[in-house]
C-alpha cells in the first residue's frame, strides 16, 4: 500500500517484553497454535507450494497437476492446433476454468497461482535483506550507541522520510525494464530501514538487561556481547517481525502492480490482475474478487503467523 512502509513504522515496534501470557511451548509448536494460526500457516504453505509448483511445473513436476498455461488465450490463434480457440473472455467458473477467464480469455486460476510466485519472491527477498542487513546494523547501533548510532539513524531517517510510494515510483521509473529481480531488489533495499529500527529498539532494550550489564561489568569483550548476547536475542523478534513486514511488502508489490509499475507482462501478479479486471468491473466483478481475495488472505495469514511468533518470542525472552 502507498503508506505501507510508513505503516511499518506505525506498527508499535515489537520490543520483547514479558507482558503477554501464552501457554508454555514445550509441547511442540504446532499443536499449541490457535486454530486461526494453524489455518494461516496452512494457507501460506499452500501459496508457497502453488508458487513453486507453478514456476517449476514443466521442468520438474512434468505437469503432474492439472494447472493450465496462465498465458494461453483460449480465444486466440493456437499454433499447435493451427486454429483459433473457442474460449470466451470473462467466462464464469466452470469445470474447465475453475475461476473463469479474464478479459483475453486466459484461465484465471492459473494466473492466480502463477501470480503467487511474484509475491513470494518479493516477500522473501525483502525479508532476507531486512533481517541480514537491517538486523546487523540495528543490533550494532542499539548496542554501541554514540556517534555511530546518530549517523546510522540519521541515514535511516532520511530514507524513511520519503513517502514510500513516491520513493518506489521514482526508483522504479528510473529503470526501463522492470524484472522481478529489480522490483525485489528495490523493495528489499527500502525494507532495510524498518528492520533496522526494530533491531535497534530491541537491541537497546536488551543492552539494558541484567545479563548484558553483568557481562559488561565482568569485562566481556563488546564484540562477544554483540554476537553472543544481543543478536541471538534480537533475532527471534526480528524473524517474527519479518512475517508482519512481509505482509506489507506483498501489499506494496500489489500496489505497484495495480499501478502497472511492477514486473513485465505477461507475467501475472495479483495486483495487475486486479488492475486489468477493474476495467470490466460492471460486466464481471468476480475477476476482481479472486485476486483481491488471494492478496487479502495472504496478508492476513502473514499477520496472524507473525503476531503469533511475536507473542511467543515475548514469552521465550521473559524466561531468559
Amino acid at each position, binding site marked *: 500500500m502507498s503508506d505501507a512502509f510508513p505503516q511499518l513504522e506505525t506498527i508499535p515496534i515489537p520490543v520483547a517484553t514479558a507482558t503477554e501470557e501464552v501457554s508454555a511451548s514445550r509441547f511442540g509448536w504446532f499443536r499449541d497454535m490457535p486454530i486461526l494460526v494453524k489455518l494461516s500457516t496452512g494457507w501460506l504453505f499452500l501459496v508457497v507450494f502453488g508458487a513453486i509448483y507453478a514456476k517449476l511445473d514443466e521442468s520438474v513436476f512434468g505437469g503432474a497437476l492439472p494447472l493450465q498455461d496462465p*498465458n*494461453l*488465450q483460449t*480465444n*486466440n*490463434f*493456437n*499454433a*499447435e492446433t*493451427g486454429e*483459433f480457440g473457442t474460449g470466451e*473472455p470473462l467466462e464464469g467458473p466452470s469445470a474447465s476454468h475453475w475461476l473463469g477467464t479474464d*478479459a*483475453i480469455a486466459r484461465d484465471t486460476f492459473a494466473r492466480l497461482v502463477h501470480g503467487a510466485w511474484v509475491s513470494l519472491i518479493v516477500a522473501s527477498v525483502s525479508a532476507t535483506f531486512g533481517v541480514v542487513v537491517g538486523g546487523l546494523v540495528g543490533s550494532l547501533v542499539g548496542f554501541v550507541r554514540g556517534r555511530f548510532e546518530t549517523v546510522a539513524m540519521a541515514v535511516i531517517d532520511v530514507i524513511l522520510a520519503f513517502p514510500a510510494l513516491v520513493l518506489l515510483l521514482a526508483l522504479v*521509473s528510473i529503470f*526501463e*525494464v522492470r524484472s522481478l529481480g529489480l522490483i525485489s531488489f528495490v523493495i528489499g533495499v527500502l525494507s532495510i530501514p524498518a528492520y533496522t529500527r526494530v533491531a535497534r529498539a530491541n537491541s537497546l532494550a536488551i543492552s539494558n538487561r541484567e545479563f548484558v550489564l553483568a557481562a559488561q561489568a565482568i569485562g566481556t569483550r563488546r564484540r562477544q556481547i554483540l554476537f553472543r548476547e544481543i543478536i541471538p536475542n534480537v533475532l527471534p523478534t526480528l524473524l517474527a517481525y519479518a512475517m508482519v513486514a512481509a505482509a506489507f511488502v506483498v501489499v506494496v508489490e500489489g500496489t505497484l502492480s495495480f*499501478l*502497472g*509499475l511492477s514486473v*513485465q*507482462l*505477461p507475467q501475472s501478479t495479483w495486483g*495487475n490482475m486486479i*488492475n*486489468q479486471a*477493474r*476495467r*470490466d*468491473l*460492471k*460486466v464481471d466483478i468476480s475477476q476482481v474478487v479472486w485476486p483481491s481475495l488471494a492478496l487479502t488472505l495472504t496478508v492476513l495469514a502473514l499477520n496472524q503467523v507473525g503476531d503469533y511468533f511475536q507473542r511467543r518470542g515475548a514469552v521465550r525472552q521473559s524466561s531468559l
Partner: protein
Amino acid sequence: MTERLDGRLARLLAALAAFALLVAACGGSSDDTDDAAPEDETEAAEAEEEAEDDDVAEAGEEAEGDVDTEIEESTGERVVGGEIAVGLEAELPGMRPWEDTCASSCYNIFVTIYDKLMESTETGEYEPWLLESITPNEDFTEWVGTLRSGVTFHNGVDLTAQSLVDMFAIQQTGSQSQSQIAASNLATVEATGDLEVTYGLSQPNSAFPAYLSRAQLGMVFEPGAAADGDAFNAAPVGTGPFVFESRDLDNETIVTKNADYWGTDSDGTQLPYLDKISFRPIPDEGTRLDATLSGTTQVAHTLRQNTIRDSRAERDGGAEITLFEFQGNNVGGGMFNVLVPPFDDIRVRKALVQLTPQDQVIEALGGTGISLPGTQWFSPDSPWYSEAAAAAWPQFDFEAGKALLEEYVNDPERSDGKAVGEKIEYELSCPPDPTLIAAMQVGFEVATSTELVDINLTNYDQQTHINYALGADNGFVGSHGAHCWRFSDDNDPSTSLNPAFAPPTAEIAAAAGIPDVVSPLNFANYFDGDIFQAAIGAIRTDNFDERYALYESISLKIAEDVPVWWSGHTATALITDDAVMGLVSWELPSGTLGQGMPNAEGRWHQVWLAG
C-alpha cells in the same frame, strides 16, 4: 509547378501532425472536427443543406458489420435554463488556444468560450461560423474572409478584422499555433476592411479553411487580454456562448451563459440555452461512467470502446442514458521503427502484421461490435476510404507470417546481425492502460508461438513513451522498436498525413534531395519519395478526384510496406443523461445541420435539458 519541394514548406507541413500524433500516443483523440471535404463543394453544399425538420435528427452512421453507431435524438420543445456537469477524460493543460495542447477533452471546454471562424457540417464540409464568408483566389494562395458584424468579446471589446490581425501576432509566438501556421502555409493576415480580413499564403493550400475550424488558428480570443499570457490563462476571453467563470485544476472548470451572445436558434431564441456548465476531469473510465449513471454528472466523455460497451449494457439494462457515438478516422495500432533492425526488413514487418489477429485484438480492446477494423488512414465512412487499399492490407495468416520470419531468421545477411537461426528480439511498448495492456498481449501470444521471436513487453508512462518515439537526443531516430500509437483524424488528410511521411532524419532528407525537410513527427521513420510527392500534390488542387487518387496511392503503398499496423478505428462517445438534448441537432448560423460530436467533442451552445 516544380515537384522539388521548398524545404521550408515541407518542414512546416511536418510540424502539423504533432498534435494528432501526440494525442494519439496519449490515447486521446484529435483536436478537431470531421472529414475535410473538397473545398469546391463547400459553397454549393451550403445552399442545398437544410436542417432536418422532422422530430428525429439522426447522426452517426450505420457502419459495416454489426458496428452500430446510430443516434436518435428527440428535437422537442427547447428549454432555456438549467445547468449540467460534464465528466471529461482529462484535465486540459491550459486555456490558451495558441499555446496549449488541446485534445478532445479540452475541445469540449474551448468551444464554449471561443467561437471558431469556420465550423464543420454534418457532411464534413467547412462553413463559416464567426466569419460570414470566405473565398480563395485561383491558386489558393489568398483567402478573403468577412466577419460577422456586431460581435463583442466577453470583456466588451468589439470584434473587428484588426482583432484577427492582432491575434495573428500572438499566434506566431504560440507553440501550438506556430506549427499550424507553418503547416497551413499562412504567411500574412491583413485587415482589408473593417470586417474584411485577407489571409496570404506562402504556398498554395486548398485545405486552408480546415485550419480555421481548429483551435490553434480558428478559435478567436481577445488579443488585448491575451497580451499577458499567464493572466489570460487564469481568465480567458473569447466571444463564445459561455463565459469563463472559474477553474479548480484537476477538479472543475465552470463556464456560465453569455447573455450577450450573438447567436440565436432557428426560432430566434437567444443562445445558449443552458445557464452553466461544469466540466470535471475524471481520468478513470469506470468512475466517469458511474458518475453519469449515478447522476453526479449529466454527461460522460469517452474515447474507449470498452466504456461504450459498458454504457450500452447499462442503457439496455434500463439506465436512463443516451449514447452519442461517433466513429472517426482516428485509428489505433502501432508503428515499427524502420531505422532499427529487425524492422528495417520489410519481411519482419509484414510477418508481424500477418501474425496479429485483428479481431481478437479488437475484442481485447472491448471493441467487438463497436470498433471497425482498420486497414488504412481512413475509416470506411470517410470519403477518402479506398476499397483497393483495404483489400491490399495484409490479413491474418499464421503460416505465411511464420514463413516470412523463418526466411529472415535463416538469412545469413539478416539485418539484426544475429546468427542464423537465432530468435528475433525486440521490444513492444504501449502506455500503461489496462485496455492497451490486454490488446498488446494478444499479438504477443501469436507472434511468440512461432518460437522465432522474443518480445519484451513494456509499458512506459505517456511522456516517456512519446519521448522514446521522438528521439530528440539521437537525431529523431528514436529509441523505440515497436510502439503502440494512434494515427489520423477527421481533419483534411493533409494535416496529418504530410508530416507523418516526410523525411524523418537529416540523412534521409539529404539522400532524397530535399536536405532541409526533416520531420521529427515521422515517428515510424519510414520514408518513400512517391508518398511524399503525392502528399504535397494533394494540397495544390481542390479537385476531389485528383486528391482522392493521390491519397489512395499513399494508402496502397503503406499496405505494401507496412511501416505501421492497425487495430480498430477509435469509437468515441458522449454518454448523457436522457434529459440532455441538442448534441446532434445543433445548427450552423446558415441553418445547416452541424457535425454532431466528432471525437466526443460536443458543441454545447444548443444543448438543453428536456422537461
